[in-house]
């Protein structure tokens, strides 16, 4: 019986400064227009399950104020507006709060000069357009992971954000949680010795898919749901309730399955730990995948494995057969982390306290959304900036392209972002927008 549990992962972060006192908002000229408040004003776009969760984190931060919500689904929109209104009514001890407006068209939010920042929690196929528009309009952006549904799209996001000089955080929130920060710090500071193996376990199958059987007649979208706008830039496919909320993940029309849904979590941490999140890979190797047969709606891989190889020699293994999480093994030990848990190969390793000078992501405000708001206030880089998230998501898109073209190896030039000697795989990396939607270069 091990007797170690009482050693909590000491939040060795010495960054205990309560962020409101760090720099006054007025110093940074934030607060927007003629509003008397110093708060950072938010418009929230895309309010399904994840969006509502993110919105809760914004509501919980006293420096932020949500003034607009947007969704193409009337039910989502109204539920979000209600939640915001109730929270602020309670805060101000008033009977009603009328400061949060509802929108169907996100461009109206983006055009408002009094809005400082946007939350983008739409499905993957909308991330790029929304982020590029927001960046062009000078809004700070919190966009959910994965960065986008294709490499050219997240490249466009990274470029737009860089040119606009706004803060953009991608929702890889594991970068803000203790067990993953510790994994990164142990690996990067040599506590594991020379790293010999990195294994990432991602989910198989399809989560929360529901029952449906062929043949399925195309359905009529409900009255309050703007399906054409929900589809946006995607090539036209008919409406099925079972393929909209949540379950768009399992269709290559919109996303890339469990792989793209989770690349921004455990793989992202592995990439940061190994110092390769700032570049793309040079090859995908040993790629294998299984696809569903006969499903009338969904076609993304349900089981898969591959290795991501980098120019500096690092290789990260990904497989649905690995235990969910990431395992980094070195000459002096190993560590395994998944949500809520971190396991060490020895008591000595477990007892390591990361010194303050070696902390990487553990500095500053704890929560991922709080870190974003902090970055806005200090005009600094958030924990998961878009250019890193672009590199990480690229790995998933490359792997999917390898699977779909039947290649077990796909070579990639990260500096020009082009596939090498693989025109068939390269075609799967393209995404052409349906008119009138157009992605700014």
């Amino acid at each position, binding site marked *: *019986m091990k*007797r*170690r*549990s*009482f*050693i909590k992962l000491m939040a*060795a972060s*010495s*960054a*205990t*400064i309560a962020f409101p*006192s*760090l*720099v006054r908002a007025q*110093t*940074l000229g934030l607060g927007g227009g003629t509003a008397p408040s110093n708060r950072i004003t938010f418009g929230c776009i895309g309010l399904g399950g994840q969006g509502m*969760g993110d919105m*809760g984190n914004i509501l919980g931060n006293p420096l932020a104020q949500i003034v607009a919500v947007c969704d193409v689904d009337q039910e989502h929109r109204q539920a979000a507006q209600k939640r915001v209104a109730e929270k602020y009514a309670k805060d101000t001890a008033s009977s009603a709060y009328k400061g949060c407006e509802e929108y169907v068209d996100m461009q109206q939010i983006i055009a408002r000069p009094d809005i400082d920042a946007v939350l983008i929690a739409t499905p993957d196929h909308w991330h790029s357009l929304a982020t590029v528009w927001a960046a062009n309009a*000078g809004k700070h952006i919190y966009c959910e992971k994965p960065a986008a549904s294709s490499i*050219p799209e997240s490249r466009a996001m990274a470029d737009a954000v860089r*040119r*606009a*000089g706004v803060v953009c955080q991608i929702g890889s929130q594991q970068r803000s949680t203790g067990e993953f920060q510790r994994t990164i710090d142990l690996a990067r500071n040599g506590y594991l010795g020379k790293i010999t193996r990195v294994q990432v376990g991602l989910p198989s199958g399809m989560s929360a898919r529901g*029952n449906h*059987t*062929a043949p*399925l007649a*195309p359905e009529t979208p409900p009255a309050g749901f703007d399906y054409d706008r929900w589809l946006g830039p995607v*090539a*036209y496919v*008919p409406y*099925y309730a079972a393929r909209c909320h949540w379950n768009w993940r399992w269709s290559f029309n919109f996303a890339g399955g469990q792989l793209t849904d989770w690349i921004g979590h455990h793989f992202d941490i592995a990439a940061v730990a190994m110092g390769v999140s700032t570049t793309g890979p040079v090859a995908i190797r040993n790629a294998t*995948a299984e*696809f569903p*047969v*006969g499903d*009338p709606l969904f076609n993304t891989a349900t089981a898969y494995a591959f290795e991501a190889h980098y120019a500096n020699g690092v290789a990260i293994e990904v497989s649905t057969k690995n235990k969910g999480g990431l395992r980094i093994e070195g000459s002096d030990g190993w560590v395994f982390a998944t949500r809520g848990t971190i396991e060490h190969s020895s*008591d000595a390793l477990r*007892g390591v*306290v990361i010194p*303050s000078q070696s902390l990487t992501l553990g*500095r500053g405000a704890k929560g991922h959304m709080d870190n974003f708001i902090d970055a806005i206030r*200090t*005009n*600094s880089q958030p924990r998961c900036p878009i250019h890193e998230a672009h590199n990480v998501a690229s790995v998933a898109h490359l792997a999917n392209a390898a699977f*779909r*073209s039947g290649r*077990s190896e796909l070579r990639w030039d990260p500096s020009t972002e082009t596939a090498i000697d693989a*025109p068939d795989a*390269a*075609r799967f990396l*393209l995404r*052409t*927008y*349906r*008119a*009138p939607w*157009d992605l*700014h*270069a």
Partner: protein
Amino acid sequence: MSAVRLRPSSFALLLALTVGATATTALAEPGHVFPALTPAEKAAIADALPAKARVAPAKPRKLLVFYRTEGFVHGCIPYGNEALRRLGEASGAYTAVLSEDMAMFDPATLATFDAVVFQNTTKLAFANPAQRKALLDFVASGKGVVGLHAATDNFPTWPEGQALIGGLFHGHPWTSGNLVAVKLDDPDHVLNTAFHHQGFWIKEEIYQIMGPYARDHQRVLLSLDMSRPENARPADKIARTDNDFPISWIKNEGAGRVFYSSLGHNKDIFNVPSILQHFLDGIQFALGDLPADAVPSARLPAAPAPALAPDDKTTLQELAAHSVKTTAVPAPLVPAAKLAAPSTAAPVTDSLAQLARYDYGQDTSVISSLEATLRGQSSAERAAGEPKLLALITADGTPAAAKQALIRCLLLTATPAAVPALEKSGMTEVLAADAARTLAGIADPSADVALLRLAANAPAASRATFINALGQRRSASATDALARIAKTAPSPAEADAAVEALARIGTPASLAALAALPLEGPQAEARTRALLAAADTVIRRAPAASRPAVAKMARSVLSTTKLIPYRIEAAQILLAADGENAVAELLPLTRDPALRIRQSIARSLALSGLPSALTGLDAAFASLPADTQAAVVSAAYDSGTPALMPLVKTALSAGDVSIRPLAARADGRCGDETTVDLLIPLLTATPDLAAAAKEGLGLLPAGKADILLLDKLARADAPAAKVTILAILAGRQQRAAFPAALTLCSQADATVRASAFEAVAKLARAEDFPLILALTPNLKKAADRREWRKALFSAASAQPKNSQAIALIQTALAQPDAPESPVLIGALTVLPGEESTKVLRALLASPDAAVRKDIIRALAAARSEGAYALLKETAQNSKESSEQTLALRGYLETLAALDNLKPAQRVEGYRAAWPLASRPEEKAAILAAVKEIKGKDAEKFLKEFAPAEPKPTAKA
């Protein structure tokens, strides 16, 4: 995972749990009320229903579904009822009447039915002689009886009734959670059709059948496959000597028929399509509609070879939960496609005819199969097969959905020969985006031509898509055409798409084309944006040659545009293109009236690394607005490069007061030991600045900075100054500060002392154990104790086995009124090895009840895994009720406090506690704690132990 902290008062204040009649354990309850099925549960049954009956009934049939229980009440009864009702409805085979009223067996009433199902009836006395006669006559006259599961556990005083069903329940050595292998005794029998000549695995409770059962009397359809070790059971559980464990059978009785199956205990059995089909077939046999051979198994001229269970042990329930609906065992997933080896898969043509009829929402097997085939083929093979795909794409009769799928398959073949078909498809609006994408991927000039033609001729609504595609493929040859579209297209969407495409192409020629467009009118903004994007792309791709042109363009935009994003972008491009030469004209922008401009440009200049930019910023720093100073300092903090340290120093000394904390932190990132003296004085400044300085000192690189700080520590006079530096060194894990920390633990000042103990806790190692133990006289306040405890536990848990630590603790405990004895006991629980456990057990066995209680309390406070195990032991074994309660409470509190437990482990812990909880408030506390746990294990636990309560709603 949040830990739920149970406070001792929770036992007293929680309401007594109302333990109503739980569905799985009540007895003898006709009229028992079952909870209603949820819509999801109904849907799961509905999904498993066969589409139609195997035969049409000879006439409308009426089926009595009887579910009266005079013994054990099965929780699955409502599921069975729903399934049987829906089976009849969906298939048309019968109409069901559900009842538990014995009056149904009055002769006149019974006669109105065609067959009776005993659905998990138990211990039916069936005492009325008239009803007994009625039932026997009912069957003998040509009607039917069906029994499901517990139907063999009835008629305790009526042998004829037992003989009618054909067997008697004699225990179930295979329980409801067991994985069992089932074989088809008669694979060709019509009532086994649903199983497709293959045995199967299920999780189900299987009866051992005794009594009137005999293979000489009935035709056995399904039985346990005893060739599988999973089915083996210990001899003391098995009464039969012939290894025959039947599951489903039929027989003729007079002119009537009987079908029985022991399946039907687990609710999810009713979600399995093949089992529902099997039941329906059996019911139709009993109704007399489906003829089936009922010659007893032992009397067949030749015994059929049974179909055994397969090697794949996936249960039918798992398959039902995950598969697309099918009445057969589903085919396995298509295996992975390997690197393009020549394919031995079926030629492409076989599936094409089917694919040609595909429409949205249909089974996509044909598409998956074609894709899989193509994936496995070489490029030559794919090219060879392409014409057939093209023929289908261009055929008028092919539905749009099929064309879309085929165009997507062309991503794999994509020879120039495909261009004409794609161009034709592009004229259909619904296919435009897919045609555009595939064309974008064909490396042949004919694709450019096709895209340009489509851009001109396709329906207006889709033209922008093709222009977009030209940008995607970086079609340099389309530059002139795109420029024309940008200038002359009447539709803003097309003009916009054209400039974006030119930007994405990003060659000097496309940049020039954009630069030639006048930047005024309604297109001005789009053109400016595209121009800048193109310049940015060009400068990044072909830097040297294009710099002059790009710099010129950027300057021009900077001097003309008022729009903030374009000024920022132009400035950035200018900096990238012209480097040092641009610094002088960009520096003034750090005082621009627009906040975003001055912040962005200041940041870009700081991060550019250009010497003149850094010196320029430094010289101007004090006159910059505070927000711009902040941007510069944040850039330093983010990058952590030493080159920015001069700016940080300036910020610290001459910057706006409001940004100095930022600067102190940035110092830690960019500085080295030479900046220690800048930060030390700030430790006594205002709280914000002091905290930032502390953080900054904590960030300096390891090495010389530590030496300097240790020196400061030694030289500091006042203890208050000492502990601040001590805290920094402790955060830096600087071991050499440990002696100073120990010394400061004896300080009279409470704040100083608490900080000293905190430093001890952070730096403690195994070898410090005796020293830490010796600090007990210095413990005056709660803060001291809290940190001391951490230090002691930390050192204790790192001890080698059989260290002196146990002896030292025992000595300390032996002191009269041993101070801190609870913590010492707690420390014993974290020592590695078995020795300390022995000591603790000896203490727990003390003859003195007060001592025993003290030990239990100390264990409860320890919050360690070692204490957890001992508390559990004590709660299980203690003879004294008050100690048992104390131990249980400690056990539950520790369980709630332990982090790093997975939900399953946590629930396991509560499950072990449940039998130990004798009082309602204890049970209530357990339930309250489990309700906080997410996931299936917790739900299962709650269903089992608190089924009368509503399920906890999922938390966001």
